[in-house]
């Protein structure tokens, strides 16, 4: 494909039917009310010259280039800020307009470097284009007057430069930072001729800038330009594909020059992101070509041996024979595998098929086990399907947004920008989180309520909210009566005094009156939407909490239309897809239990293999079984379990106990230290397939380059299965999707052809919904009636004690991604070179810890060390860290506690002690009687 440039209609679309008809240069065009003259002209095929206008931003009217004449009106109004009116006759070209525009351009060009031929934006510069469009032939003022040509370039950002001498002060960057991203890091400093773009009076790197790239995207000149374009030149062709970071699943144009990837540009037609991006998707793709990548298969007999590079044939036959040998000696159930949420649906599907059909067991699990498995359980129990209810666009219709245990501005930044836009428009915000996340108070946004609960008390809080709704008569009775079941039993349970806000106040730390006010707001404030993350699921009652939120949504009638719903913010790009594809040990693709004879029969017919009707082992069960000696080999697709899973010591012991560990990954990660076979994987730039994002949107992942390893991952898996004696062959990943569609009712209408035609679809996509389902449960729940489930609060076993008096909770930050295997190999390390421990100054003071000190963090299962940073985001008694760097080993301290229903680890609650790593000498300690010993026993 040549370089794809989406049309820019100048100003944003307005909703509604095209009821206003105008004439532009004699061409009639009908547009919705409120549409600008500029956009109407563009829709009629006439481009009006412009510089400060672009259709991702509201009209600004500053450049004066888009002037038009309108019959019956005086003067020459700006077409970007003038709305259409019925019968309006617009003239876009006339000698008068030509002269005016040339005059404007003369002024711009008189203060702009004339280095077009060597400029990095040559050929992609709107100023250059407009000079040609308006027919500028001379600059009468010369170039020697006062100008900005000596302005310094700010190169502080690792990914883009700010070349101020080329700035035309159109404010597009400033407005993009505010309107699109919602950060408001940029401003116009000074007045008149002294006006200039400023990152808050400092350089970009030191500013509030989050490096989302919206300003670079909006800039009409080379002022804000990707360093990669400066270095490599303008790209010449595009491939539209999908980001491989978080569960938002942004669409990007991968722009190349020859075979070299120059930049990733967010795609305006992407359903999930609609042209926006974050620092990871936009810029942090360098890991895909990082020299650390392993491109050759390797084997070794023992994990203490050196790796031995081999060819693919050897690696595949070796893997297959070792797996078969272990099964022969230890039984069919002695082996299994883990699928990855970073791989495509097609790659996940073939791994679970290999395990079920070639291994002959159901010992398949996925990394969703450690993040959103409670979502699958909880939403299936209550609504009937394991997925979020809304599309991302829905948030624009929300009136009350409740964010529970999620940090969207860091974890799901592109969706957060949508949410922030709605909040700036006036929607109310409730944040339920132990930590004061940025959303609680950020530019133009302030939460109505921040319920700063104690870690581990989610269920008590959601029950108390439901208690208020019920006992204060705020239940949506007509919705409940018509759409739900088991309400009466639930109502009797939730009305009990022990669920009242007052009863749980001491336990949760949430003032009863504040909780009551939040519950009333959610129930009565209009469309109420719940968005949640791992702060909900990664608890011993993660599944209970998901059901508790579903109860609250049903009780208030907030399901089944735009603006409402229960919405998991999925951590990884294809968590939803990996779950959909049958990665759980009890479910075949489409969330159908393996014990269902009819469903199993359909798969057996298609696969030509007998399938077991019993569930297999989950990931933590695999570890336990490995230590017990009944589980001897594991195939790990794209997951670093040695770093990401809790209780590292236990995981390492399990991996070390196995006879065969096969790792398929980009890098020799922590898990590979325990591996006997390393099968190099492909990055998202090499993959051909689909990802499914958190809104159930199936997006195409198109290959930007050929596999650097010589093979696609699905080919390798199919060849291992074949080498084990099970025939599995595909010529193209579209055939895999066709098989998925043939076997999975919710995917029945999905094909690569349809995705290429429509861009994306949201499942269910079948005869009932040929173009997909943006919002679920509209006319009825998937299970028929929505089911109220009683959700008693059961405190976690993990308690603070004299020995471990603090509670550790974990999270992630904007610039890094999960265990950091990708982002640590990009320029993003500039923002987060290490994990730190956020500790409240009071907790630090009593331990003699200063800001920046190296401290030891210990729990009952292990200890690690990292740097302490003072923060009052957490209440006293709670500390916080991230897990992006293996050297920190945050999971050394997390425990075996897990969600009762799904075994999702309880990452969010660990009793710990913190002390100075290098405590002062005893004499110094004695001088400070109030201080605790550095590492109290």
């Amino acid at each position, binding site marked *: 494909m040549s370089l794809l440039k989406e049309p820019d209609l100048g100003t944003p679309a307005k909703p509604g039917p095209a009821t206003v008809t105008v004439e532009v240069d004699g061409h009639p065009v009908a547009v919705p009310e409120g549409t600008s003259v500029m956009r109407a002209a563009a829709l009629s095929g006439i481009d009006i010259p412009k510089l400060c206008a672009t259709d991702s931003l509201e009209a600004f009217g500053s450049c004066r280039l888009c002037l038009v004449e309108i019959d019956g009106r005086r003067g020459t109004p700006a077409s970007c800020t003038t709305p259409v009116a019925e019968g309006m006759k617009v003239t876009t070209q006339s000698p008068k307009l030509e002269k005016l525009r040339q005059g404007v351009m003369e002024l711009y060009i008189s203060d702009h470097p004339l280095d077009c031929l060597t400029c990095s934006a040559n050929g992609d510069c709107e100023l250059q284009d407009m000079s040609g469009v308006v027919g500028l032939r001379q600059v009468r003022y010369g170039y020697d007057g006062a100008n900005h040509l000596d302005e310094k370039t700010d190169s502080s950002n690792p990914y883009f430069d700010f070349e101020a001498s080329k700035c035309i002060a159109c404010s597009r960057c400033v407005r993009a930072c505010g309107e699109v991203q919602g950060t408001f890091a940029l401003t116009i400093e000074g007045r008149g001729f002294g006006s200039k773009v400023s990152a808050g009076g400092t350089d970009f790197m030191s500013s509030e800038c989050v490096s989302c790239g919206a300003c670079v995207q909006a800039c009409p000149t080379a002022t804000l330009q990707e360093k990669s374009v400066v270095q490599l030149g303008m790209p010449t062709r595009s491939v539209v594909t999908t980001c491989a970071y978080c569960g938002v699943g942004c669409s990007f144009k991968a722009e190349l020059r020859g075979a070299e990837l120059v930049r990733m540009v967010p795609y305006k037609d992407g359903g999930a992101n609609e042209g926006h991006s974050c620092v990871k998707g936009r810029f942090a793709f360098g890991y895909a070509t990082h020299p650390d990548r392993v491109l050759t298969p390797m084997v070794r007999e023992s994990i203490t041996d050196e790796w031995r590079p081999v060819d693919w044939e050897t690696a595949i036959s070796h893997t297959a024979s070792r797996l078969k040998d272990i099964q022969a000696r230890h039984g069919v159930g002695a082996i299994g595998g883990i699928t990855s949420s970073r791989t495509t649906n097609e790659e996940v599907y073939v791994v679970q098929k290999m395990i079920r059909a070639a291994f002959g067991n159901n010992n398949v699990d996925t990394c969703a086990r450690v993040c959103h498995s409670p979502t699958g359980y909880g939403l299936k129990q209550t609504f009937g399907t394991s997925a979020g209810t809304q599309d991302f666009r829905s948030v624009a219709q929300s009136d009350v947004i409740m964010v529970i245990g999620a940090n969207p501005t860091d974890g799901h930044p592109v969706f957060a920008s949508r949410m922030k836009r709605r909040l700036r428009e006036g929607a109310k915000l409730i944040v339920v989180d132990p930590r004061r996340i940025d959303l609680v108070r950020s530019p133009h946004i302030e939460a109505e309520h921040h319920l700063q609960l104690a870690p581990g008390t989610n269920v008590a809080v959601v029950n108390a909210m439901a208690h208020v709704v019920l006992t204060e008569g705020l239940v949506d009775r007509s919705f409940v009566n018509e759409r739900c079941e088991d309400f009466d039993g639930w109502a009797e349970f939730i009305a009990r005094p022990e669920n009242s806000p007052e009863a749980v106040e001491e336990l949760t730390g949430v003032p009863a009156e504040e909780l009551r006010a939040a519950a009333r707001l959610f129930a009565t404030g209009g469309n109420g939407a719940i968005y949640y993350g791992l702060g909900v699921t990664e608890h*011993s*009652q993660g599944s209970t909490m998901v059901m508790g939120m579903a109860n609250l949504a049903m009780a208030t009638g907030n399901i089944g239309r735009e603006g409402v719903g229960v919405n998991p913010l999925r951590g990884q790009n294809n968590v939803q897809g990996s779950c959909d594809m049958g990665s759980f040990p009890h479910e075949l693709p489409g969330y159908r239990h393996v014990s269902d004879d009819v469903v199993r029969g359909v798969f057996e017919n298609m696969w030509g293999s007998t399938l077991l009707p019993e*569930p*297999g*082992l989950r990931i933590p*069960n695999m570890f336990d079984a490995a230590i017990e000696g009944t589980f001897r080999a594991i195939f790990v697709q794209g997951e670093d379990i040695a770093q990401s899973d809790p209780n590292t010591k236990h995981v390492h012991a399990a991996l070390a106990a196995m006879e065969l560990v096969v790792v398929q990954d980009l890098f020799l990660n922590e898990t590979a230290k325990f591996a006997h076979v390393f099968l190099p994987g492909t990055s998202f730039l090499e993959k051909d397939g689909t990802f499914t994002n958190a809104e159930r949107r199936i997006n195409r992942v198109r290959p930007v380059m050929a596999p650097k390893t010589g093979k696609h991952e699905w080919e390798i898996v199919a060849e291992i299965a074949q080498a084990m004696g099970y025939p599995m062959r595909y010529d193209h990943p579209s055939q895999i999707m066709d098989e998925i569609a043939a076997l999975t009712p919710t995917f029945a209408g999905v094909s690569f052809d349809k995705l290429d035609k429509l861009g994306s679809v949201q499942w269910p996509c079948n005869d009932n919904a040929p173009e997909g389902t943006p919002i679920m449960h509209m006319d009825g729940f998937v299970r028929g009636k929505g089911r109220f489930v009683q959700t008693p609060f059961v405190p976690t076993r993990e308690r603070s004690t004299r020995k471990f008096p603090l509670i550790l909770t974990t999270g992630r930050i904007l610039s890094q991604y999960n265990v950091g295997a990708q982002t640590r190999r990009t320029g993003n390390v500039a923002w987060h070179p290490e994990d730190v421990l956020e500790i409240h100054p009071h907790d630090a003071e009593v331990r003699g810890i200063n800001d920046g000190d190296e401290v030891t963090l210990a729990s009952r299962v292990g200890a690690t060390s990292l740097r302490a940073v003072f923060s009052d985001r957490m209440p006293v008694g709670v500390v916080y860290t991230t897990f992006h760097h293996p050297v920190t080993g945050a999971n050394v301290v997390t425990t*075996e506690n897990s969600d*009762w229903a799904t075994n999702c680890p309880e990452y969010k609650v660990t009793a710990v002690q913190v002390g100075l790593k290098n405590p002062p000498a005893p004499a110094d300690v004695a001088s400070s009687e109030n201080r605790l010993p550095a590492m109290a026993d």
Partner: protein
Amino acid sequence: MSTHTGLSPQVRLVNEIAVQFHHQAPEQAAAAIAEHIRAFWDPRMRAELLRRAEAEPDALDPLALAAARLL
């Protein structure tokens, strides 16, 4: 194998499930726990649970023990 709690994984896990059902009538709770285990546990885990229930019934929550006897 046992964990730091001194319990086998199967006993620890079934007790964690059982406590979630304490609000229900015992028979109903035991049936629900048994159903959950049948739906989600690998057969070798169920076998080990039965063995533990036989060998060390006191280690199991009473509802968990009742559920084990329904498997």
